[in-house]
């Protein structure tokens, strides 16, 4: 039973207040995930059915967006050649934080059927942090949506923190990118 005596309220520290606000933000972030689809491979064909009336992604508050600045999720569907990897890194770095990466199909996990091709990277995780993988070749729309629900759970449990990893271990990621691509320079043609 609660005591009726006056007890002084325990004051929250600044960290705790920040954490509470972050949790409030997490509610909004996990219920409104906007996708930027980076459709390089055949898995992109599974996205139209998961967006339209059959599986209806919009009921989870998700939808496609036009530019990396507006998007929350970078959806990598398919294999990545060295040429597309460079563009993928540009795109990922343009997105505003918090940002999440979903790898679709088996190609971003271990190379899939392209694992021994000279121009294709095998593990996406070496270059940018991936929060959720949806395995399968190709995964059907149910598993695609299941992957997004997993991402929502991850945001709720604070396990989907790839963007923090990318900031903390930036040198490691940059080194891997350089090893694969030789040089990663983002050309800013407007200000040059």
């Amino acid at each position, binding site marked *: 039973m609660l005591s009726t005596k006056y007890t002084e309220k325990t004051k929250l520290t600044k960290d705790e207040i920040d954490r509470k606000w972050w949790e*409030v*933000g997490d509610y*909004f*972030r996990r*219920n*409104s995930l906007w996708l930027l689809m980076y459709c390089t491979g055949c898995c992109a064909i599974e996205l139209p059915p998961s967006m*339209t*009336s059959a599986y*209806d992604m*919009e*009921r989870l*508050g998700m939808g496609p*967006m*036009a*530019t*990396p*600045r*507006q*998007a*929350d999720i970078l959806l990598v569907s398919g294999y990545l050649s060295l040429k597309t990897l460079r563009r993928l890194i540009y795109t990922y770095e343009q*997105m*505003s*934080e*918090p940002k999440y990466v979903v790898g679709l199909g088996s190609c971003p996990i271990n190379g899939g059927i392209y694992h021994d091709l000279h121009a294709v990277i095998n593990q996406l995780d070496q270059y940018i942090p991936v929060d959720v993988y949806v395995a399968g070749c190709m995964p059907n729309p149910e598993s695609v949506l299941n992957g997004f629900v997993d991402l929502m759970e991850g945001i709720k449990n604070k396990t989907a923190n790839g963007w923090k990893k990318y900031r903390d271990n930036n040198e490691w990621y940059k080194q891997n990118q350089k090893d694969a691509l030789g040089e990663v320079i983002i050309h800013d043609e*407007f*200000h040059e």
Partner: protein
Amino acid sequence: MILNILIGIGIALFGFVLQTSIGGINRKIVGRMQKRQGPRWYQEFIDIFKLLSKRSVSHGWIFDFGVIMALGGIIATAMFMPLTNNFLAFENYDNFFIFVYLLAVGMLGMAMSASGSGNPWASIGVMRALTTMLAYEIPFLIVVLTIIKLTGKSSLTEIMLYQQATGNNWFLIALPIGGIVGFIALMGMLGKKPFETYIAPAEIASGPMVEYGGKQLGMLFIMHEITVFIEVSLFVHLFLGGASNIFEFLLKYFTVYTLANLISNVNGRFKIDQVVKFFYKWPLLMAVTQAVIAIYFGWVI
């Protein structure tokens, strides 16, 4: 004076909440039209608060300042909007031309900010938005000037009261051709589908909004909702006889916005030259015909 300003800000806030809810309900309606479940009705609120909770980059101070100018200009415009016959913040300041002038502040703020981002898609989007504006404003203004000539007043409240007086009809019925032109121009103002040329997500990557993300995009969303509130309310007051109480206003507002949205969802997108040609062909011709009929022949139902 302070009370008036507070009421004005209240109207802007009311407009934001109203339009965001109705926008969400409309997303649900469109979902049901396409045999989908559709998002929750408060999804638009979640989207806006999420955007405000994200971190964002800046592209220089013009980019940031333009967003604030756009939001401020639109809130300032919404403050003058009458909701019903006798509910408005600033008595005698609800002239139609005040809205025409003040809306431009918000639009120019957005244009300035988008150009400040330095992205070519943004410049193309701004150019298209201004071209569309030139296209729809001429037929719309001819119809509104006809209304002003008939009533002899340019204040929104007076126009509302004129339509509600016994013996007079709503201008949608009294000037049927002009009413159609007004609705088509409203579709252009709202950027709905046939005239969605300046947003065009698949073509020019959402046009002026291409470089926005996070907080700036959230503020632009708020600005967009209040702009839609102003434009649809203008149509309700000018053509649908305004409203004598708030429920009537809500009903008319919902009907007009939902109708525009439904028409939008069964249409494709015009190219920019098609938009200009369309507006300068049929709506302009209809507007001039309506003006001649109403003013020189005096045939008003």
